[in-house]
């Protein structure tokens, strides 16, 4: 599904210090992956490359065998992946329904209802929702694009234990029931333990 081929990355100001060093890996659909690593190990950089928010200095990233740069990174972000961030990242002047519609043309209310956000909560300003509700809206927006790959950066980082568990279950079900390829970058051992595959970045290598 999503293949990383000998990808290397360094920051322009630190050319000698490879953040990612010849990483090669193939992510499959219907599986949930957890990427672990210490701070600064390159987890978020890998996620950015997978999301097409940046380009590797060496190597390729392919979806269904095709380089993501071929059709353009905007196309890749729109059709192949969906992103969930630690800080929820919702547009503050839109309602939950409208935020979900940014992801794609779907029945936003139904999708939000699946996430447990119904009634008045779905049309009020997103800033008036709790952290857990905001993260659910963000996930609903990610699902609205109907992209086969879901990338999440510390999705439970700002949530309490109960909500974090619910979100983790949600990711698992997306992988197993909707056959999505879910890749979660996290520090959380609990979340990682729920994943089908745990990967660790160490010294720029994926192990």
């Amino acid at each position, binding site marked *: 599904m999503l293949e990383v081929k000998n990808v290397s990355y360094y920051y322009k100001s630190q050319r000698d210090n490879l953040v990612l060093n010849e990483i090669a890996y193939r992510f499959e659909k219907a599986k949930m992956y957890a990427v672990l690593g210490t701070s600064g190990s390159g987890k978020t950089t890998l996620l*950015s490359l997978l*999301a097409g*928010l*940046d380009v590797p200095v060496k190597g390729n990233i392919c979806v269904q065998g095709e380089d993501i740069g071929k059709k353009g*990174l*905007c*196309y*890749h*972000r*729109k*059709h192949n992946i*969906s*992103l969930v*961030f630690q*800080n929820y*990242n*919702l*547009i*503050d*002047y*839109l309602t939950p329904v*409208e935020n979900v*519609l*940014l*992801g794609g043309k779907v029945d936003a209310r139904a999708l939000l209802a699946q996430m447990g956000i119904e009634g008045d909560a779905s049309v009020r300003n997103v800033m008036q929702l709790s952290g857990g509700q905001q993260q659910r809206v963000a996930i609903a*927006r990610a699902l609205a*694009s109907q992209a086969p790959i879901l990338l999440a950066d510390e999705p439970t980082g700002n949530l309490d234990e109960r909500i974090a568990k619910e979100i983790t279950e949600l990711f698992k079900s997306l992988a197993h029931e909707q056959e999505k390829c879910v890749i979660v970058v996290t520090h959380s051992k609990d979340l990682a333990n729920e994943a089908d595959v745990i990967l660790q970045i160490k010294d720029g290598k994926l192990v």
Partner: protein
Amino acid sequence: MNLFQLSVRCLYRKRVRSILLFLIVFVAAIFIYSGWACQSASVQTQNSSRQSVGASFRLEANASFRHKQIDALSTELDKKVGENMPGNLGGYYREQLESGEWMIWTDNSFETLKRSDIEKIAQTEGLCAYNITTANTVVNPVNFTRIEDKDRDQTSDQQGVSLRGSRDMAYDFDVQKGNIIVKEGRMVAAGDENVCVVSRELAEQNKLQLGDKLEFNDWKERDDSAVYSAKVIGIYDSIQKITPITEGDSYRAENIIFTDLSFPEKAQGCENNPLYQTATFWVEDVDDYEAVKQALVKTEIDWEQYDLLDNSGMSDTMAENFSGLKSMSLMLLCLVFVSSIFILLFVFLFWIKNRICEIGILLSVGRRKLDIILQMLTEGMIVSAAAFMLATCAAPYVAGVTADYLVGNQMELAREKEEAQKGMVSISEDSGEDEIVGVTVSIAGDVIAATAVSVMGIIVVSIGLSSLSIAIQKPKNILSKM
């Protein structure tokens, strides 16, 4: 959700920001309107000496033709008598003074309007009357004393009085304007000879009565020149003092004596060599004004030597574009353009900084940077359109006020300059004074279009420049700032 839907929601739900932008664009649009409107404004000036009552045309000598003639006669005289040699030709004189300097002057025959041309014009169908007026001619008062201000410096004055000859005094422009009224006796009429009308002040000082004879001669040869007398047939009262054209009392309002047309030349010692300065022609029916004008200019005379001034009498003015207003409004436009772009640039930069999270989200869901910039442009355009519409309603008033201010400012500067130069430069005879009587500013289609394009341009440039910060950054860098 398309970018228009997002733009509308953003503007509606971020009202404070939208209102701020609206106010900035509104103020900018108002000033731009004022600038463009002033570019095409016309200023009604009123020349106090040229204004006359009734529809009329005024014939004067053309100044540039005069200079051309002087050059031509000078060249011809060089050929005739040799370069740097004294001589005269066609009323042009060249003489070397004892000091070695050259003096050049012209006589009446060179300066006068041709009577034959005036009479040809007077034949034009549709004219009901005409008048010829001589230049104010300084002569020496022989048997009376002039009005004099003892405190005034008279060293450069000719120590005389002024004679103004008229074919028909009733058509003199000071009589027509109501500056003077003859309350005793009568005015000079066509066909009169050796008659005059004096001021009340002059009459009282010299105890003059109707029928008395005043004597005059050439002020340059007071003791030797021939003396001419004119009978006093009227005494006039000044309602509005005639503005003297130079310092000294020779041209003082009370010392102006109205005479028949040929008297000034005699008293000046130039009999049969008159100096007709202006001729005025009156239109019988005001409604035929344009038709008479068309017919009049077809008169077969050498028009190159004349200016025909379009005095439309009661309609008070000759409208002309005021170049000072044009340049000041251009400056205003440039100032508003530059300052608006700068202010809006900073507003949009601040706007983008506060919207970095939104931009990152939109990039992460696959929106192109161009779409995001277009969304901001759409927001800018929507607000600008509303501000522009309100500005269009307010523009006629604000543009009028601005134009008045600019013209007033310009006139104030001119007055200050005139004050500073007072006594340093000579004032042409009978120049009159241009007075601003109104500024017409109209918000026509071209002004609206120019303002719309300008406002749009300012928005596009400021959003374009501020958007460079998005365009040059990688999506990852934008997201890292969230």
